[in-house]
């Protein structure tokens, strides 16, 4: 995260939780920090500040050595499986490697496990002796999933797992992920820019904008009743699949700002040039609950007057109590 200009806060003050067996969808535009957050969660990046608790244990600052036995619990799959699969290794060697690193099984057992994993992700066992580049994109993603599954992880971070795939193959991989979750009780952090795909797989959805989570709610609630102006704009940008019902889009001006020089106050308020932007400088724009299980940034530029009034009232009541 270091650049010549100094440190960039790619992810800034984010708090999220994922329950066992749950899928948390993470959406936002490129550069919003969603992939960085995913990598931090599986400790491919060490967070500068804050904690990541896995089953109650802080994994964010433990040493690589102490992390090693824990790593098997969280795995990651990537957008382009080709980049995470060594072209010089056979598919068998790729899937077997995690067992060897963790010192698991005899040679004969590992052969059996690899065959079982291939079968589980829908590849013939003859694939084992071939090389990843001999496979199509969808099949390579299956190989990546088999490897990630090898150590029976509890949490899988899926970073744009289907965005590079053709639509007909995309549905095959989405179905596989849904089935695996059902069979193994996996939790997913599902990062994607395709909001229809995220809605399909997620129990809850978090929306990120410039390094911050601006809204979290159940998938059903966030799509039916988005509270944050950015979420509303994102949802309205999804192309409708009905040519007779072309929707009115909320067109955003400009582009996602750079995290190198973020605005002092509300980042989205700044982008849309909101008249109340000045008020947000120095304000705590953290998440507040506005409906059961529905949290939104306390940002007067981006939420309804009603929600803002409610948040203010809750705060005044809180101060009165103490």
């Amino acid at each position, binding site marked *: 995260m270091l650049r010549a200009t100094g440190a960039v806060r790619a992810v800034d003050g984010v708090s999220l939780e994922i329950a066992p067996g749950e*899928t948390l969808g993470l959406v936002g*535009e*490129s550069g919003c920090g969603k992939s960085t957050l995913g990598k931090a969660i599986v400790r491919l990046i060490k967070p500068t500040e804050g904690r990541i608790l896995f089953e109650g244990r802080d994994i964010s600052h433990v040493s690589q050595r102490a992390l090693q036995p824990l790593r098997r619990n969280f795995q990651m799959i990537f957008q382009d499986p080709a980049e995470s699969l060594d072209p010089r290794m056979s598919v068998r060697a790729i899937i077997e490697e995690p067992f060897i690193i963790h010192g698991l099984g005899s040679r004969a057992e590992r052969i059996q496990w690899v065959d079982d994993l291939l079968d589980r992700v829908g590849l013939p066992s003859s694939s084992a002796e071939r090389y990843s580049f001999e496979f*199509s994109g*969808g*099949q390579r993603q299956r190989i990546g999933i088999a490897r990630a599954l090898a150590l029976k992880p509890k949490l899988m971070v899926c970073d744009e797992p289907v965005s590079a795939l*053709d*639509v*007909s*193959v*995309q*549905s*095959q991989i*989405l*179905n596989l992920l*849904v*089935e695996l*979750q059902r069979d193994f009780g996996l939790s997913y952090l599902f990062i994607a*820019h395709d*909001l*229809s*795909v995220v*809605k*399909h*797989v*997620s*129990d809850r959805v978090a929306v990120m904008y410039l390094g911050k989570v601006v809204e979290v709610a159940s*998938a*059903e609630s966030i*799509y039916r009743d988005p509270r944050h102006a950015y979420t509303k*704009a*994102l949802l*309205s*940008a*999804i*192309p*409708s*699949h*009905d*040519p*007779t019902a*072309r929707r009115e*889009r909320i*067109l*955003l001006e400009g*582009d*996602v700002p750079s995290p190198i020089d973020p605005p002092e106050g509300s980042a989205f308020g700044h982008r849309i040039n909101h008249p109340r932007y000045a008020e947000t400088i120095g304000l705590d724009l953290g998440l507040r609950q506005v409906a059961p299980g529905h949290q939104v940034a306390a940002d007067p530029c981006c939420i309804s007057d009603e929600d803002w009034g409610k948040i203010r009232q809750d705060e005044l009541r809180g101060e009165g109590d103490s």
Partner: protein
Amino acid sequence: MIGETETILEVDQLITSFETERGLMRAVDQVSFPVQAGMTLGIVGESGCGKSVTAMSIIRLLPQPAGKILGGHVYFKGQDLVRASDSEIRKIRGGEIGVIFQEPMAALNPLHRVGRQVAEVFRIHKGLAKKDAWDAATEMLDLVRIPAPARRMMDYPHHLSGGMRQRVVIAMALACRPSLLIADEPTTALDVTVQAQILDLMEQIQSEMGMATILITHDLGVIAETCDEVVVMYAGRVVERASAVELFANPLHAYTRGLLASIPTLDTPSKSLLSTIPGTVASLADYSHGCRFCQRMGREKNVIRERPQFAEVSTGHWVETCPICYQP
């Protein structure tokens, strides 16, 4: 479409082949469709279906020497582009026919200022003097809603965001007020909100300038939002063609149906199993002459040995009438 329309481009039995290690491959195999003036025609299909090669064949930008047009015609305002000389086609490309690619950086020179590159189009195609070309270019950047266009003219491409770069490329493509714009996945590399901006911009400009557009995309949502007519391609062939409204309401080919059913929409029940199309698109070398979608579905090669006829089954609705894949 009701009312009188004028056909501006007619692709007729186009065949484009590539020389490969495994022999000559027909990437485009007898493709035909008309494009009406002022309308948007979408070409949709998966990677390798030949949608981009079709577009590149129209403007004769095939990779050389591997790609060759082996048959058919592309009539643009009555002239057959397949038989046009290189100098004629160069005049038309970027002149009467504008082109936009997926990756704007592929069309921009990183070493030159944006202004110089847009102005160059006016110098080459319109023969404008330096100062006039510069002014015309500034006007174009304004037309594609780039804020502070005079200042942006001095920027280098890397100063601009992806969305702004694509606007510059659109400005270059539209500089000569083309009557046809070919856009190959113009928004695929962009974020959804920026995609919405660009699609909106293209729609506005299209109605202002009255040009026709061929939009190539893998995204059925983009097709539904923007297109009047749709061509569905599979393995180098057109399997279905109809108006967008008709195609989404009444798809008749198994492949089109499979594509539409496999995409989750906001109305799909959460975590339900999506319908899938088994297998993957095979290499063109592995296809026989018969119905190619039957082959993907694992049906024996000899079931449908003859190439299915591409027929108009109701007004304006064309389908490859394979006895298995055509499902009225």
